């Protein structure tokens, strides 16, 4: 099971980014091995279609869950289609590590 957490930077202490399509980095956390992997988001400055491309990327990376602050209507539709679980967390003061600890427990 792979989970993606949107983050501001590329390490575990960096903050949780509440945007999905325009998050700076995606942290891919593998629940089976406990490994984390950071992927850069090349669509951060896209004028349009960032959410759609991000959703397609999630499907490419074969993730099962995405944790973010919100999802746009198009991204929602696509993620629904790909059977990817969307999780919305409102607390923006969390770090990526905090969220991983939450899922583990």
């Amino acid at each position, binding site marked *: 099971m792979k989970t993606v957490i949107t983050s501001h930077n590329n390490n575990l202490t960096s903050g949780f980014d509440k945007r999905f399509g325009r998050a700076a980095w995606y942290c891919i956390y593998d629940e089976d091995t406990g490994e984390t992997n950071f992927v850069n988001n090349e669509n951060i400055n896209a004028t349009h279609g960032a959410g759609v491309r991000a959703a397609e990327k999630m499907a490419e990376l074969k993730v099962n*869950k995405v944790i973010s602050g919100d999802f746009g209507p198009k991204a929602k539709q696509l993620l629904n289609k790909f*059977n990817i679980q969307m999780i*919305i967390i409102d607390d923006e003061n969390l770090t990526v590590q905090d969220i991983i600890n939450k899922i583990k427990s």
Partner: protein
Amino acid sequence: MPRRRSLRKVVAPPGFRGYKPYGSNQVSKEYIELLYEEYEAIKLADYDLLNHQQASELMGISRPTFARIYESARRKIANALVETKEIKTVYGNVWMDKNWYACINCHARFTIPRKMEKQTCPVCSSIQIESIKN
């Protein structure tokens, strides 16, 4: 300012993006936009053969509103057939009956995709979850 439109509940979006006429030598370049709620109204009334009262309750709207949507859907389709126009489906004023849930324990909101069987919160594994409109 007019009263806000209440969102219409749609169980599933149409399985197509549109319909195009063929075999006609005067195909109009115009198209009509069939809203998701109109598709849903046609489906409930003429495919599932519900009466308007039952159908309106399913969509979370009043019976007169359902009748209006249904009528507009029929007129649009008739218009497209007679004037050989293309039909395109458009999102409209709806919320999908896709499963959005909120966890009572940690306030996270999440979806449960079809393939997933367990009905627990993905963040704190609490079983205290409730369905929400989103």
